[in-house]
C-alpha cells in the first residue's frame, strides 16, 4: 500500500513583506536615484512578492562613499567591539530564523525543510564563527596586526541568498572592512531583511550597504574606483568578466564560480548510503548548487544495481510547494533558469544520452523541473561538460580508479568531488588525485563555517570559511 501525504504547509504569516523596498545606503532605505524599480516574484506560483529599487551608477557611488566614510571608524574599532556586533547579528538571525526561512523559500523557491534546517542555521553559524575571529586576527597567520582592505564590493547569487550574504559579509566585517553588497536580481528580499537586522543590532551606519539591481548594478559596483576588494559568487563567465574589470588595478579579488562535480561510486560502496549521497548531491536545492554532484561516475560492475536503487529513490522525491514541510524539491528559481535547464536537457537527448525521470506531477503555475537523470552519457556530451545548475544528473561509468580520476578531472572546473568506497586507502588516494577544492568522501554537500570552501581551475580562487577565509579580506 502507499501512504498519501497530507499537505503540511509552513505558515507564511510569520513574515511581513512590504509592497516595496528601497536601497539600504548609509543606514537608511532610499529610492534609487533614477527612480527605477523591478518586481520580485515567487517562482513557485509567479506571485509578485514586492517591488525593489534598481540601483544605478549614482546609487553605487553613494553606497561606496557611505562605506568609505564608515570604514575609518569601523576599522579603528577594537576587534572585540566588532566581534560583539557580529555576535549580535548572529543572535538576531537565530531569533528571526523562522521568518527568514519562510521569506527565503518564498523568494527563492527552495523547500522550507532546506531553508529552515540548512540555510538559516548555517547563516547564523557563519556570523558566530567570524565574530570570534574579529579580536584574534593577529593569531590567524597573517602577521601580528593584519589590516583590512577598505571597502568591499560583493556580488552574490540567487541559489543561497542569505547564506552567500553571510559568507561575504561576516568575514569582511570581522576583518574591519565595510561592504556594499548586491544580492541577485531574482532574490533580493532576504538581504533587505538583513538590513533590518543590522539596524536592530545597532551596526554603525554605512558599514553594511545593500544595493538591489540586475547585472548592470553588479558591474558598476566591481568597476567603482574606490572599491578595494571585489568578491563574487556566480557563473564562471561573469567571473572572468570581473577578473578582466579588475585587471591592472590594486583591487583584491576572490571568485567562487561554477562546477561540474563528479560523484564517484566504487563497487564496494554501501549502495543505499551512496544513493542518498547522490540524491543529496544533485537534487539538494533543485541542483542550484555550484558544487552539485552533477556527474555520477559509477564503477561498471555496480552500475545496474546502483541505477535501479537510485531510480527507486528518485521516485519517492516530492516536488512541489516550497512551503510544504514534506517537499524535497522546490521550484526552479526563475523562468530564465528553467529555460536554460530545459535547453541543456534537450541537448542531452539530441546528443544521444538516454533521459529518465520519475512520474511526477508538476504544479501548473511557477517554474518546475522534474528530477532527471541521463544514462549513456559520454565525456563529450554537453551535459557532461557544462554546468546545468538544475536537478539533472549525468551518469558515466568507469572500470579503474585511474579512469575515474581522469574522467573526474576532465572539465575546466575544479570545485568539488565525491568518493564512495569502503576502502580507506583508496579514499585518500582518490582525494589526492582529484583536482578540486572540496572532496566529500562517503558524504556530499556538507558545509560548515570552519571549513574552507572554494575551487581549483576555472571554479575560481580564494577560500570562504575557516581561517583561510580571512585572507580574502586582509591586506596580505
Amino acid at each position, binding site marked *: 500500500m502507499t501512504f498519501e501525504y497530507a499537505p503540511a504547509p509552513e505558515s507564511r504569516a510569520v513574515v511581513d513583506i512590504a509592497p516595496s523596498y528601497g536601497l539600504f545606503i548609509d543606514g537608511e532605505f532610499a529610492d534609487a536615484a533614477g527612480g527605477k524599480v523591478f518586481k520580485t516574484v515567487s517562482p513557485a506560483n509567479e506571485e509578485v512578492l514586492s517591488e525593489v529599487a534598481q540601483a544605478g551608477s549614482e546609487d553605487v557611488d553613494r553606497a561606496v562613499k557611505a562605506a568609505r566614510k564608515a570604514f575609518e571608524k569601523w576599522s579603528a574599532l577594537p576587534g572585540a567591539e566588532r566581534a560583539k556586533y557580529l555576535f549580535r547579528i548572529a543572535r538576531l538571525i537565530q531569533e528571526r530564523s523562522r521568518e527568514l526561512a519562510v521569506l527565503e523559500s518564498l523568494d527563492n523557491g527552495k523547500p522550507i525543510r532546506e531553508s529552515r534546517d540548512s540555510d538559516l542555521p548555517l547563516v547564523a*553559524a557563519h556570523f558566530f564563527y567570524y565574530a570570534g575571529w574579529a579580536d584574534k586576527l593577529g593569531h590567524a*597567520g597573517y602577521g601580528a596586526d593584519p589590516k583590512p582592505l577598505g571597502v568591499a564590493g560583493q556580488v552574490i547569487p540567487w541559489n543561497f541568498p542569505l547564506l552567500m550574504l553571510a559568507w561575504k559579509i561576516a568575514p569582511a566585517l570581522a576583518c574591519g572592512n565595510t561592504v556594499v553588497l548586491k544580492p541577485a536580481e531574482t532574490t533580493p528580499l532576504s538581504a533587505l531583511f538583513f538590513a533590518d537586522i543590522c539596524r536592530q543590532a545597532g551596526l554603525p551606519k554605512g558599514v553594511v550597504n545593500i544595493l538591489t539591481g540586475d547585472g548592470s548594478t553588479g558591474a558598476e559596483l566591481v568597476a567603482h574606483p574606490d572599491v578595494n576588494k571585489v568578491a563574487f559568487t556566480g557563473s*564562471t563567465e561573469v*567571473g*572572468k568578466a570581473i*577578473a*578582466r574589470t579588475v*585587471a*591592472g588595478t*590594486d583591487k583584491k579579488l576572490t*571568485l567562487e*564560480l561554477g562546477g561540474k562535480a563528479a560523484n564517484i561510486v566504487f563497487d564496494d560502496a554501501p549502495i543505499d548510503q551512496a544513493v542518498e549521497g547522490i540524491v543529496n548531491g544533485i537534487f539538494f536545492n533543485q541542483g542550484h548548487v555550484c558544487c552539485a554532484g552533477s556527474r555520477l561516475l559509477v564503477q561498471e560492475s555496480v552500475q545496474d544495481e546502483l541505477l535501479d536503487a537510485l531510480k527507486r529513490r528518485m521516485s519517492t522525491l516530492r516536488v512541489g510547494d516550497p512551503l510544504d514541510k514534506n517537499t524535497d524539491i522546490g521550484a526552479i528559481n526563475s523562468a530564465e533558469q528553467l529555460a536554460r535547464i530545459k535547453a541543456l536537457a534537450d541537448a542531452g537527448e539530441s546528443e544521444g544520452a538516454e533521459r529518465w525521470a520519475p512520474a511526477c506531477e508538476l504544479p501548473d503555475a511557477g517554474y518546475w523541473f522534474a528530477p532527471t537523470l541521463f544514462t549513456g552519457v559520454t565525456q563529450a556530451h554537453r551535459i557532461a561538460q557544462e554546468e546545468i545548475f538544475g536537478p539533472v544528473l549525468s551518469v558515466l561509468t568507469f572500470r579503474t580508479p585511474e579512469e575515474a580520476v581522469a574522467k573526474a578531472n576532465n572539465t*575546466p572546473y575544479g570545485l568539488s568531488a565525491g568518493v564512495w568506497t569502503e576502502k580507506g586507502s583508496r*579514499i585518500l588516494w582518490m*582525494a589526492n588525485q582529484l583536482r*578540486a*577544492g*572540496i*572532496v*566529500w*568522501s*562517503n*558524504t556530499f554537500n*556538507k558545509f*560548515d563555517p*570552519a*571549513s*574552507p*570552501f*572554494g575551487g*581549483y*581551475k*576555472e571554479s*575560481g*580562487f580564494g*577560500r570562504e570559511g*575557516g*581561517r*583561510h577565509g580571512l585572507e580574502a579580506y586582509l591586506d*596580505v
Partner: protein
Amino acid sequence: MSDRLSVLKTYKLYVGGKFPRSESGRVYEVTDSKGNWLANAPLSSRKDARDAVVAARKAFGGWSGATAYNRGQILYRVAEMLEGRREQFAAEVADAEGLSKAKAAAQVDAAIDRWVWYAGWSDKVAQIAGSANPVAGPYFNLSSPEPTGVVAVLAPQESSFLGLVSVIAPAIVTGNTVVVVTSEKSPLPALSLGEVLATSDLPGGVVNVLSGRVNELGGPLAAHQDVNAIDLAGAAADAELVKALETAAADNLKRVLRPRNTDWTADPGTERLLAFLETKTVWHPTGV
C-alpha cells in the same frame, strides 16, 4: 696573463631537461653594463613558450606527486651545485648588473642561501597553510595546500640572479612546475642556472628557462589555456603590460601574482610560497 684563447659558451634555453636553441633560430646580443658584447642569447619565440608549457605540464604529475621530503632534498642539492659554481655566477652577475666583484658575490651568496631557505620549506608549508577544521558534526575535516600547477614566471628585470632565484624556488618547492622568462637584458645567469638544475636531480621540465622579450613571451604565456598561474614580477616597470597580461590571464582564471616594488635582498616572507597553492578540504564521516 696567458695568451690562450678562451672557449666561449653557447648559451642555450633549458626546456624539458634539454638545452635547445630557440626553434626560431633567433638570437640577440647580450652586453655587459658598459655595452661590451658578452654572448648571443636565444631569442625565444611563442612556439618555444608553448613547448615549455608542454614540458612543464608533463613534469607536473611526477613533481607534485613526489614526497615533500624528496623535493626538499632535490632543492638542497641545487644549492650544493650552486655553491660549486659560485665564482662563475658571481662573474656573470657582475657583468650583468655592473656590480663590483664583492657585491656580485654577495648577491650570489644571498641567492644560494635563499635557495636553501626555500628548500627547507618543502615539508613545512602544509603545516602552516593547512588546518584541521572543527566542524559542527561527526566529520573528519582537513584542509591541505596543493600546488596550483604550471606557473609562468616573468623573472625580475634588474636582479638577474637573486631575483630570479627568489621567484623560481618558492614556486617549485611546493610542487608547481614553471616556465620562467629571464631578465631580458641580463639572461645569462638564468641560462647558466639551467645547467645547474640539469645536474641536481631535478626532473626535466620542472623548471624551463626562456630568454627573450617579455613583450613577446608574456602574452602567449598569460593567454595559454594550460598555464594555471602567472607571476608578473618581470613586468613591474610597465603598467600597461601588467594590465594586458592580467586581462589575458582572466580567460582561464589564472592565479595572478601582481608585481610589487620588491627589494630582493630583503627577507622574502612566505608570500610567494603561498601564492601558488590551492587549498583542498577533505570531509569524511566519523562513526563505528
